[in-house]
């Protein structure tokens, strides 16, 4: 498309010679070595997404088996023990191993491209974060291999999960995996924050930052403040279990409620940690398919930041029935109501955008509109459950199961599917099939609503969550059958997108640079982008660079007040030296340069060391744990010892 053409790089070399030189400089090693030592944010990001989707389909399959068990009263498909394991693993995997990492994957892939950078600020840390994620996931699912999957529910309340009531290693798999994967999330968040503040293209001031980048910035800050709480919750649990401390043991003066406070101090922000990037995707997709800028950009950014703050003040609404005095509960009830307002602001910004634009119903937009209709209901029931006395009735019932699937499945997974249809062409260089995409969307949309809406009613009829069966005489049979059938339709819909993805690899139409006529910088480079993203750094003077400037100017015409090093890094010379320009945090003026490390096995080795520590703790094998610590620490020391100069 015309507006995406870029000027040839300002250098004497012929363009094809230059391209060749760049490729030689940046290429990963082929085959297996390249697989283990790549630090390219695009490879890491795509692996994140693919790996997370493997966990998505596994955890989804568990849910479908549970729905077979619940399709009829007193069914005997799953034993109570297996059922309890399945819902525990389903919830844990969806939250920790699908939702959070898949969003991190999109962030990893897109943020450097969206801000006009050549990589993340800490590429090796980025690779480390991925390896920790995939190894912690394998660690968690290894529990199936030895026949002891976690069975304490995804929030693993004590005392049920304490040693006297769960003597085997099932719960240790859960507790250790939560601590384990938290390392990945946390270092990833640090990387996002530094990348977003320091690597934006010249001219991309904060108020010209794409909304998705804003959402990932809020995501990262929330992760840094919230994840320590769940790490502490799980660590104290494991100290109690493995070393006999008694933080949660009432008989020895501990507290069972302490666990719930710690868990939900992470747990509620976590809902928004997932939801905020999802809305960032929606705020990206809606304007592009309405052919108009996002209405109320400042409103939406303010709303994202406000949600980030307020979400830390609502955790007790998961504990309304625990006997905390009503006065304190009323405070949390009120804050839970207030958090609706920033969501309302975003909602009306999206409606205004479509209203003033001309909507194209392409597949990403269908998912966005589906999201709006689903999140509207999930938001409304969210307001209902923050009304204290009503929550006393519906908490821990199927009403809440319905509510949080409307929010976490409908309002997070639908945007993620929309994002797949939107960005996969950039990542793979192949378009997905529109027709199959439409069929997939409608199957998912109808299946989703028919599967989850009736759960509200089951909650009203008194069906508690997490029951492995029910009696025929209680009037729940018909609705449960409908739900089970529809859940398979929803599952089929997600599989159709998987098929679509597989087919696009073989015979998808080649994706142009900017297939959707979008406005952000990732669409100014080729599909898929070259390893170095941009031969010359774009210079930004608008919130919508690809809409407002034809073509986007590059560093050859960059700002005059750049320091020399920084200016050099902006251009092809920087790309040839594997450098990125570093800019000032607020106004994005070139400031310095940052080298991009060569491929290295160190992150993978360090992650293996960490894995051995957790295996050692699980198996209570001191030797394994110590060996892991030695390998991990050595890898990190070597990694820090060698400067960027050595590695490039």
């Amino acid at each position: 498309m015309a507006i995406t053409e870029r000027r040839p790089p300002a250098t004497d070399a012929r363009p094809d010679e230059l391209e060749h030189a760049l490729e030689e400089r940046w290429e990963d090693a082929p085959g297996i070595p390249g697989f283990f030592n790549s630090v390219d944010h695009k490879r890491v990001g795509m692996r994140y997404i693919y790996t997370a989707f493997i966990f998505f389909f596994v955890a989804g399959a568990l849910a479908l088996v549970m729905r077979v068990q619940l399709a009829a009263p007193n069914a005997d498909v799953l034993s109570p023990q297996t059922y309890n394991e399945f819902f525990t693993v389903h919830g844990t995997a969806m939250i920790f191993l699908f939702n959070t990492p898949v969003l991190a994957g999109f962030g990893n892939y897109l943020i450097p491209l969206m801000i006009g950078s050549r990589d993340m600020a800490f590429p090796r840390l980025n690779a480390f974060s991925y390896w920790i994620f995939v190894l912690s996931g394998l660690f968690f699912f290894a529990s199936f291999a030895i026949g002891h999957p976690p069975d304490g529910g995804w929030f693993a309340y004590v005392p049920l999960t304490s040693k006297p009531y769960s003597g085997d290693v099932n719960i240790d798999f859960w507790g250790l995996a939560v601590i384990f994967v938290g390392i990945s999330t946390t270092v990833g968040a640090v990387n996002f924050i530094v990348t977003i503040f320091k690597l934006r293209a010249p001219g991309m001031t904060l108020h010209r930052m794409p909304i998705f980048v804003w959402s990932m910035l809020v995501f990262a800050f929330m992760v840094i403040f919230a994840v320590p709480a769940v790490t502490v919750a799980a660590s104290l649990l494991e100290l109690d279990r493995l070393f006999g401390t008694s933080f949660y043991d009432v008989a020895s003066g501990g507290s069972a409620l302490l666990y719930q406070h710690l868990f939900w101090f992470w747990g509620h922000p976590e809902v928004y940690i997932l939801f905020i990037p999802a809305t960032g995707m929606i705020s990206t997709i809606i304007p592009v398919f309405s052919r108009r800028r996002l209405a109320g950009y400042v409103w939406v950014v303010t709303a994202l930041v406000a949600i980030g703050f307020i979400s830390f003040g609502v955790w007790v609404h998961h504990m309304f029935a625990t006997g905390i005095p009503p006065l304190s509960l009323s405070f949390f009830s009120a804050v839970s109501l207030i958090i609706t307002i920033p969501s309302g602001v975003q909602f009306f910004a999206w409606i205004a955008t479509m209203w003033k634009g001309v909507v194209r119903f392409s597949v990403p937009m269908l998912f966005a509109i589906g999201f709006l209709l689903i999140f509207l209901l999930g938001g409304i029931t969210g307001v209902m459950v923050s009304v204290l006395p009503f929550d006393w009735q519906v908490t821990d019932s199927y009403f809440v199961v319905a509510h949080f699937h409307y929010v976490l499945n409908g309002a997070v997974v639908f945007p993620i599917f929309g994002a797949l249809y939107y960005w996969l062409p950039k990542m793979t260089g192949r378009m997905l099939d529109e027709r199959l995409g439409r069929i997939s969307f409608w199957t998912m949309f109808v299946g989703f609503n028919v599967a989850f809406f009736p759960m509200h009613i089951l909650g009203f009829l008194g069906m508690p969550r997490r029951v492995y069966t029910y009696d025929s005489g209680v009037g729940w049979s018909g609705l449960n059958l409908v739900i089970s059938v529809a859940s398979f339709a929803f599952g089929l819909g997600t599989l159709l997108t998987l098929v679509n993805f597989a087919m696009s690899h073989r015979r998808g139409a080649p994706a142009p640079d900017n297939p959707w006529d979008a406005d952000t910088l990732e669409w100014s480079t080729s599909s898929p982008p070259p390893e170095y993203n941009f031969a010359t750094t774009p210079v930004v003077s608008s919130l919508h660079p690809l809409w407002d400037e034809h073509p986007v100017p590059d560093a050859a015409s960059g700002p005059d007040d750049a320091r020399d090093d920084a200016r050099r890094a902006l251009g092809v010379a920087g790309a040839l030296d594997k450098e990125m320009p570093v800019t000032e945090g607020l106004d994005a003026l070139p400031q310095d340069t940052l080298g991009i490390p060569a491929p290295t096995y160190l992150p993978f080795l360090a992650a293996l060391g960490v894995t051995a520590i957790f295996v050692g703790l699980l198996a209570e094998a001191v030797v394994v744990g110590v060996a892991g610590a030695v390998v991990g620490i050595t890898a990190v020391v070597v990694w820090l010892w060698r400067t960027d100069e050595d590695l490039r």
Partner: protein
Amino acid sequence: MTAGTAFLTTVASIVTPKGSEADRIAGAWWLMFGLAAIVYVVVAGLIVYATVRGRRRGARPSGLREDAFIWIGGVAAPVVILFVLAVVTVHTTEALRRPARGALAVDVAGEDWWWAVRYPGTDIVTANEIHLPVDRPVDLRLTSDNVIHSFWVPELAGKQDAIPGQPNHLRFTPEATGTFIGRCAEYCGLQHAHMEIRVIVQTATDFGRWQARQEATRTEPVSDVAAAGAAIFQRQACAGCHTVRGTSATGTVGPDLTDFGGRETIGAGLLENNSRNLADWIRDAPELKPGTAMPSFHDLTDRDVQTIVAYLESLQ
């Protein structure tokens, strides 16, 4: 929507309240439901309109003022609605779970996986059933010495957790006679699904009669068969785990069986209490309720089992 609400009001649910708390909450629900329906229809309507508006043939550019639209729809309208809900929350909450004079105190303990019920100040101990007089405030003291459970009888009141080391109170007034079924609502392990509680609300007279019968001194077994059953009960492991007041059976692992013959179910709502089910349960409880602390008794003869059944059914 109307069909749905009609359905909801005909079967036992949180919107067919039979107790003071459930009644208040149902009131709040219908108000919220009305507001929610309006909000959903209006906003969904705006979404649909917004998506098609610009696509119409000859559509003119919209003069919509974005900031005003966001301000009104995203801030002002929600603030008004949320204010109403905040008032409803405070107003409703204020009236609920307050100590009342003359309330009947009942201790309810969550066990794995059944409920122990005691009436303080009396000898009455029962399980999985709570008898209450209608229209008299009740104060349920909820405790657990094992894992966390949650007491929930949807037609009477919302949930209250039973948490180790922290007795909680659930206070309400039953407003109609009848049997109301509740369940444990906090995941408590293997048989969380089979932890029912029955609240039997009676007229004051009937409740008084029930109470008097409970407190009356127990007599000897009514028949020879029952007497034989009683002997086996004492001799076998039964007495080690169960209490029958007035006998040497004083175990506390399982439910007190002093009034077992009068109960409606076996295994906390698992089976109807009849001779056949009871015999099956005695022979092999773990088969029927995997994880239960009650062992199987395969070495008992059919005759032994029948006599124990007769004995237990005679306990009223």
